[in-house]
């Protein structure tokens, strides 16, 4: 069955450093991957989408990559700030499908 995996352990980094979160998928080839941010008690907020024919996407301090060989997406936040502390969810979808499968999310904690 399709699986999408994110590191369940929290990532702790120092302010100003680059945070890198990992999303791995197995048993299928998604047409796109998405990253969402979720704060406690709130719904997820869309950040970036990358398609299978794209290697990299950027938006301000955010960068996402899609490696179809490694079956992996990396999500980077450069010059991280305490306000970036949240849970980041990876989601994948098949071509023609608008129903993504979500990972469990990775908690990021940026220390001042």
């Amino acid at each position, binding site marked *: 069955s399709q699986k999408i995996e994110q590191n369940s352990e929290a990532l702790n980094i120092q302010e100003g450093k680059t945070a890198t979160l990992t999303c791995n998928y197995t048993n299928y080839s998604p047409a796109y991957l*998405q990253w*969402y941010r979720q704060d406690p008690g*709130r719904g*997820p907020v*869309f950040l970036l*989408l990358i398609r299978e024919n794209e290697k990299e996407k950027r938006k301000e301090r955010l960068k996402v990559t899609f490696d179809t060989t490694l079956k992996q997406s990396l999500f980077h936040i450069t010059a991280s700030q305490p306000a970036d502390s949240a849970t980041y*969810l990876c989601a994948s979808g098949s071509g023609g499908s*608008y129903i993504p499968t*979500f990972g*469990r999310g990775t908690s990021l904690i940026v220390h001042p």
Partner: protein
Amino acid sequence: GAGVSQTPSNKVTEKGKYVELRCDPISGHTALYWYRQSLGQGPEFLIYFQGTGAADDSGLPNDRFFAVRPEGSVSTLKIQRTERGDSAVYLCASSPQTEETQYFGPGTRLLVL
């Protein structure tokens, strides 16, 4: 503009009771999704509407769960004979017809005692 809204924000009920959860999507969004999220987990798909019809209800766990969207806008998720295992955050999301991006509401926290 206004985002997706969900009511109530919190619902406490007793085992065996019936509950209704409401979702108001972003105006003009034809697609509407319901998800369930347990603590420490990602959102789990329940049902997807395109307009008034349920395009995919494969995520509904059993026949105690039902959802409607009679006029293609507001949707109601209905849970009959609630069980303690139904306790979770129920998230609603909407999107324009041809977009993968989803816009989530704040969720309804359901606690079944």
